[in-house]
């Protein structure tokens, strides 16, 4: 019997390693796997490359990883947010390298990795700083930039519910990068608010089929935990 559900969040991230490339889901706070990121901090892995939409804000999540100085490089679209002071401090100190990618190219490069494409010609960014030094090509009268896949060793994802085969559903706009990152990482680790028995998730409405998920762990939603405290 295959059971991808881990009993503890520490067990779920036990094989992280220094220098790992890690995709982290989320757009702002929505879909951001704060508890898995805390588990990375507790684990101790360092020299990490983080692939994510944002570079953290406040004191939790990616911001906490930056504060702990575990990140060598950030590949993202929008590092400048309200309260992104930890990114700013590390970036200005030269502790963190930034690769800024247009959001659609980030998505396309993650999808290219997940789907086995070698590279894609995308129109986004043509003629801008973010395409400088990149190969370009005119196709049917339109200009494109050649962009390569972004692979990762791990993806850390937040989903709403999952079962022991790793099937996932998400909640509202917290879905964002989760499904495509799950496809692109060698090992996909998911925190879910709810565990479901096999067969409880409707096969028509599963968003991420279990093939893209290696481990999942239940994390009590923060709001509920806060309410209980």
């Amino acid at each position: 019997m295959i059971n991808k559900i881990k009993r503890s969040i520490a067990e779920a991230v036990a094989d992280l390693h220094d220098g790992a490339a890690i995709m982290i889901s989320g757009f702002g706070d929505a879909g951001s796997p704060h508890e898995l990121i805390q588990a990375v901090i507790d684990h101790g892995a360092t020299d990490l490359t983080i692939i994510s939409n944002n570079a953290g804000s406040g004191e939790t999540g990616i911001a906490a990883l930056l504060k702990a100085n575990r990140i060598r490089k950030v590949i993202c679209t929008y590092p400048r947010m309200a309260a992104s002071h930890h990114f700013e401090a590390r970036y200005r100190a030269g502790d963190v390298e930034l690769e800024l990618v247009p959001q659609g190219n980030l998505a396309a490069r993650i999808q290219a990795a997940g789907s086995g494409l070698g590279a894609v010609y995308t129109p986004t960014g043509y003629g801008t700083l973010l395409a400088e030094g990149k190969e370009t090509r005119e196709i049917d009268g339109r200009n494109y930039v050649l962009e390569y896949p972004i692979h990762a060793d791990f993806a850390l994802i937040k989903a709403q519910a999952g079962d022991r085969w790793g099937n996932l559903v998400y909640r509202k706009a917290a879905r964002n990068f989760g499904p495509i990152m799950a496809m692109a990482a060698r090992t996909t680790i998911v925190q879910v608010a709810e565990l479901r028995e096999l067969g409880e998730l409707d096969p028509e409405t599963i968003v991420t089929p279990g093939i893209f998920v290696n481990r999942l762990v239940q994390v009590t939603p923060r709001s509920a935990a806060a309410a209980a405290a």
Partner: protein
Amino acid sequence: MERMSREAMAARVARDIPEGAYVNLGIGLPTRIANYLPQDKDVFLQSENGILGMGPAPDDDDIDWDLINAGKQPVTLLSGGSFFHHGDSFTMMRGGHIDICVLGAFQVSVCGDLANWHTGAPDAIPAVGGAMDLAIGAKQVFVMMDLLTKTGESKLVPACTYPLTGLACVSRVYSDLAIFDLGPDGARVIEMVDGMTLDTLRELTGVPLESALLPA
């Protein structure tokens, strides 16, 4: 001559959005346009973080932090709306499925080049988000901005000096003083605030301007 207020600008842009349009409103100023879309017409607001059919801001009691717009503000979903992942979202945006996007800008050139993501200042931390995808992906790109900076420099320019977001992508600028259509042949004025003249606009902007004003 009176500058249009931001609310009046938002209302003016809203008037040009036809029923049935799929629209992405950029973060900041353009977000306000949503407040002026007619309630009795179906206009479909898309948000790059995976929402189609975005509704107005919720009451404080109904805020759901899993339901936010691209500016990370709480929103609602209309009946008939849907959620999807970032791949599908940028398929909508990059694939030419969005009819209109409205973006803010630092500068727009008379031929429609857009600069809105980076001042180019050496100490600035750049952030681009979905701006470059919208700029080249939407069927029509509108810019909504004050025509002049606080120090009086024109943001409609012969050629952008700030780093570009996209080339020849903006088709129309809604400003506080006038509305311009842009294209390979340059800028044409299609509306002005009361009391404004073409000559004054030319003086303020320092760019060649043709008139395409409707007869009064």
